[in-house]
């Protein structure tokens, strides 16, 4: 006898545990992710500024109360988190050690947002991770600064890829000045968006005049988009199974 729960039940149950299906985003990111940062979604951040793009993406959600787990990312400096206005007391760093399957599933149980590096896991494990992400309704950000997607690694799970390009550093010259600020263009490519959306932003944001935060109060629209996203996701899984 099998468990009599259809995936639609699973989805609605998972989304009900969380009050909203989308996490808040800063204004610059809202331009390129019009449906918000959806729960159950995997976002791959690529390019030389991948780490900053990822931190900017999650900062608003963490500062309003979600918890962030950073898995196997000891090299990320907490100082950068502070510059992105991420409150440190809601951040936990985890090393998976030699038991990635159990550690990751415990992480997915407890945190709303998880940042993981692009790692290649075994086929069965990668599938299990993907299922967990879907069922738990958490947002996973994969950092991939190598800029090439290899089949089977965590970055290939991405529903949306954010790539930072056209990076301009201000304040530094040829032997003069110092790094002051970085402006770049972040483009979002998803399986559903035919043309990439682009947005100019400064990462990390200015300390004095922080990014204006943006939150969509009309949850109806977001819910609808969440359904569309979930459906396309399901389709993708079916395709992968074939």
């Amino acid at each position, binding site marked *: 006898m099998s468990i009599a729960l259809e995936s639609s039940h699973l989805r609605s149950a998972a989304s009900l545990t969380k009050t909203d299906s989308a996490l808040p985003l800063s204004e610059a990111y809202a331009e390129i992710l019009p449906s918000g940062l959806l729960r159950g979604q995997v976002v791959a951040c690529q390019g030389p500024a991948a780490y900053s793009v990822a931190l900017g993406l999650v900062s608003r959600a963490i500062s309003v109360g979600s918890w962030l787990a950073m898995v196997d990312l000891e090299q990320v400096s907490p*100082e950068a988190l502070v510059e992105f206005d991420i*409150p440190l007391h809601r951040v936990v*760093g985890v090393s998976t050690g030699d038991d990635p399957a159990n550690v990751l599933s415990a992480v997915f149980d*407890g945190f709303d947002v998880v940042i993981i590096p692009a790692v290649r896991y075994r086929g069965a494990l990668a599938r299990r991770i993907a299922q967990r992400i879907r069922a738990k309704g958490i947002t996973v950000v994969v950092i991939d600064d190598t800029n090439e997607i290899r089949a089977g690694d965590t970055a290939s799970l991405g529903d949306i890829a954010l790539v930072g390009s056209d990076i301009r*550093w201000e304040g530094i010259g040829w032997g003069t000045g110092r790094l002051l600020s970085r402006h770049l263009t972040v483009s979002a490519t998803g399986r559903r968006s035919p043309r990439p959306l682009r947005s100019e932003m400064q990462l*990390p944001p200015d300390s004095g005049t922080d990014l204006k935060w943006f939150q969509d109060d009309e949850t109806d629209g977001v819910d609808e988009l969440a359904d569309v996203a979930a459906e396309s996701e399901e389709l993708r899984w079916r395709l992968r199974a074939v």
Partner: protein
Amino acid sequence: MAASGSVSSSVPRVLTLWCPEWPVHAVPRAEGPLIVLDQHRVVAACADAREAGVRTGDRRRAALRVCPNATVVPRDYSAEVQAFERVVSSVAEIIPLVELLEPGSLCFDMRGPARYFGGEDSVVEHVRSVVERQLGAGISIGIGVADGRAASAIAARRSGVSLRPVIVEPGRTAAAFITMSLRWLHAIGEMSIELVELLDRLGIRTVGDLAALSERDVLARFGLPGVRAYRVATGTDERPLSSVAPSQLPERERRFDEPVLSVTPVVFSARELASALVHELAIEGLVCTRMTVAAETEHSERTERHWYRSEGFTAAAIVDRVRWQLDAWINEPSAVSAGVIVLRISVTAVRPDDGVQEGFWGGASEADGRANRAVARLVTLCGPEGVRVPLPIGGRLPEDRYGWVSTAVVDRDHHVDALAPWPGSVVRPAPAIVPTHEVPIEVLNDRGESVGVSGRGEMTSEPVSVVIGGRSRRVVAWAGPWPLIERWWDERRRRRLARLQVVLEDGSAHLLAVEQQRWHLMGTHG
């Protein structure tokens, strides 16, 4: 004293049974002392550990310092409920409506049973004998009878210490508890620890002190939470009986088309039912304080339990209780022989929502609790070194300024995010990536020779390319060098280095350092 003497007929007599240190009894007996932890704090300890000086609320380290040979186990609610199930069912055999408060504690209305058994003493005696028969010697129990749930919960705790049933005569609540610390009200969940501490600072330390005030003053100064505590203290507790007729109280049910054989999917649907119920009540401005959870299998096996929580049930609290109950049920030998076909959650008592919300501004939110539980679980999975939290430490170099520190040594209730200014450090923006081990690199000039920094802090030539990890990239902008001499007085830890910022052709920016004529990567603005 405000209420002593006046017997309020609306306050029912309640018996509460409380097993002290229940979390310890749910753990299979092991050699040596035993400590149960929840979120890094001691929640229960066996008698040996208590003797050694372990106290509830101690941090793991403090507990292990006084009792180093203790076995430390994480709290497991499901196991506690499961272990308590035999107590509940034995009491339920003689008393019809038993309400579970938490694992290790239950209560029921005394009116009917007292009449049936002929007096409160006789009910207490019956309950004590069935429970003792179930648990055997060596496990102490507390039984308290008083006006209202809160007072009887206090009486039970007091009885758990004195090991004799405590029966408080009707209307004598305040007089009976006059010398007890207000922390007891916190222990039974009627008062937040902040309020206890605030009253403590104001010199109001015992139940008697609080009861001696006037209700109006308490309301004016401490608001609704204060009045709630005041009513418990004076024995006029028990929220005004709900005006909602029982038939109007919501009930939710999920029938499964195909019998479900595992707990997880049932809990999943419980989540759905719970949010719907909580939402429905919230529209009316109510919270559920008592509910009945029932599940039935294809073969008509049933589990039905009543749950009570004075703070009111959140959706998560409902789901937790459904999980505990189902776990206990299916693990009971020969209780379940088929899949679950129906799950029902009925609200049986409500009260007006007096604004005890879970963390909107500050306080612990649901997300905080979930994350804290996950952290505790992760520590058991990957060890204390595998779970780290970011902390400001202080220094001039990126690797010194902030660090990832093992969660076992950090007091996570105390947050410090910002760092005081450190003159001599490279200012914002900080490199996002700081290598955890030394990464040697090469900085070359236009002739392909290594660039150096002179003793006077000047570049020997202009850097043109940088080789990191065998990959050479052109420099498009650079700044520095910024020399730094640290701890010149310390033979072993002294450092003398110069830092350089470079932007490479792909737009990546790095902080480099030269130390004893060798370059290494200090950070990357990834």
